[in-house]
């Protein structure tokens, strides 16, 4: 496979934005999913820690 030529002539203004948009949307999906998972995981850890040793709050 010869090394591909990366200049697309007059179509370049469509291919690069398409790649950029694809990268952006996929990146957003990955980031949103990971952040959401980490956020709720931390929340559970905090709540379970609070439940383990009640501290000032009366145990239920």
């Amino acid at each position: 496979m010869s090394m591909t030529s990366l200049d697309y002539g007059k179509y370049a203004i469509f291919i690069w934005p398409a790649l950029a948009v694809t990268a952006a949307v996929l990146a957003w999906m990955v980031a949103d999913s990971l952040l959401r998972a980490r956020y709720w995981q931390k929340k559970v850890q905090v709540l379970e820690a609070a439940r383990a040793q009640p501290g000032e709050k009366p145990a239920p």
Partner: protein
Amino acid sequence: MFQALANPQRFMAFSRWAAPVLAVIAAGLLGWGLWLSFSAPEDYQQGATVRLMFIHVPAAYMAMFCYACLGAASLVGLVFRHVLADAAARACAPLGAGFTALALITGMLWGRPMWGTWWVWDARVTSVLVLFLFYIGYMALQAAIDDETRAARASGILALVGLINLPIIKFSVDWWNTLHQPASVFRKGGPSLPPEFLWPLGVMALAYMALFGALWLVRIRAEVWRKRAQSLALQAAG
């Protein structure tokens, strides 16, 4: 298989290793796919824009694949009343909407050089647009109902209604398309694709599927934690 994954603990243990594995596979396939699509020879008629096909067609395919997963998860959630299936459906919709939006945008960017306009009311593009509106409707219904179990069942019913209606909509839009645009303006990218194009297309589609699989598992894990956090907060409130 459903019974095994039904209870959250076993699912969390399974997805803890499955999600990263799928992510690695997705990354590998994505790299390979991109390399393939950029080393494929230029199409004699569409020129370099055929590169766009390699990222548009997999996205459009994923839009429908995600909806099939959404429908399946909703069916399991409604019939077997699995909480995990409801979480799976809830987690799947945003990803499906993301792929559909991606398909529409790359479709426009592909359409501009080929058809001369950003937006053409072509049968497939219109069907993908209706599918996108349907995703929004699904998520809007889910967000509008406060009680989570009721929201899951209501949106599950809507997903099944959609599962029945989307093929009908696809058919009606195709029928409508033949009515208004008898001569097809562009060469249909049908199965007559030369093999050197099928490879990048297939690899990219597999890459998107692996990525979707990984992200779906991650979002379901987030849902399980969210529900766990809610019940912990409820117990703490006493």
